[in-house]
């Protein structure tokens, strides 16, 4: 590896380090602000999904800055950059394929397994009420309200 660390990376110096630190800090604060903003949104709203997407994009930007500047990849020779970046491109396919698979499994189960679907829509009662009704303690996933 030694030869890849020649005098190539003069780029920047301490000034660049502080600039990247500032960028990373600002991005993290924006992410947190979005996270706080998202808390009040209804669960299925498309705005919530959009905010999640925005957070993921900010995450990718942060990752780029860490790899490119802190890990110095941007100042390395092109062959090393390609050795790292090309295999990582596999992740694009991995993520799309696996998340699509997960989603389709959910849809299949909800369509063909009514019991599963019913179970997952039952609300669990608050813990305080649980303790008072001991005869239901063993089937705590089941609702007690239906039986009254």
């Amino acid at each position, binding site marked *: *590896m*030694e030869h890849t*660390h020649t005098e190539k990376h003069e780029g920047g*110096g*301490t000034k660049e*380090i502080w600039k990247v*630190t500032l960028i*990373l*800090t600002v991005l*993290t604060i924006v*992410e*947190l602000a*979005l*996270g*706080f903003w998202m*808390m009040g949104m209804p*669960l299925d709203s498309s705005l919530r999904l959009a905010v*999640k997407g925005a*957070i*993921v994009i900010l*995450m990718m930007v*942060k*990752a780029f800055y*860490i*790899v490119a500047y*802190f*890990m110095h990849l941007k100042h390395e020779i092109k062959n*090393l950059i390609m*050795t*790292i970046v090309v*295999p*990582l491109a596999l*992740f694009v396919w*991995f*993520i799309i394929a*696996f*998340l699509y*698979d*997960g*989603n389709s*499994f*959910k849809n299949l*189960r*909800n369509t063909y397994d009514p019991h599963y*679907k019913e*179970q*997952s*829509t*039952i*609300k*669990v009662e608050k813990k305080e009420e649980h303790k008072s009704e001991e005869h239901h303690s063993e089937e705590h*996933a089941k609702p007690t309200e239906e039986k009254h």
Partner: protein
Amino acid sequence: MMWYFLMSDAFTFGAFLISYGTIRFSSNGWPDPNEVFKSFPFAPEGMNAPLVFVSVMTFILIISSVTMVLAVHAGHNMDKKGVVKYMIMTIIGGAMFLGCQAWEWNHLHHEGAWWGSNPFLNHDGTASSTNFTNYFFTITGFHGFHVFSGVIINIIMLIMTLTDKFEQRGHYLMIEKAGLYWHFVDLVWVFVFTCFYLI
């Protein structure tokens, strides 16, 4: 070679996180991270402070990453004093992060969360499976183990600097390699933080 090791590590973490994403996409409900991670050390019981503690942890790791870059930079200039100073700061940052994580694990364990047990309900109030805690403890545990080994590596680098090993060699390339590993740990936390705490 460090880059190739980090590639293999990246695929391991990637596989973990994609598996987490697949299970999450296949579930009808999932616990709300703001409900689970809402406490802070020494805060009164029942205090609601979502995201605050994990932001502190994130900033600690980012700052320790910055001091690591500064250590590498000092190494380039053959500035032994600078390397020692920044390596110590990096080690302290890593140890602080580990302390935070230990506290959080301990706290969640006291609330009844562990591998195979999940006391938290889904966001919509329905019963949740143990997938959430299993993935949380496995992935943050694996990351925490990386932080731990990173701290050990940094301590070894500090000792080697103090005993003038690098001065004799005439270069501080080992610091650079330890730095790569440390930045990778920070990089993984960016993903873990987003996937578990934010979305």
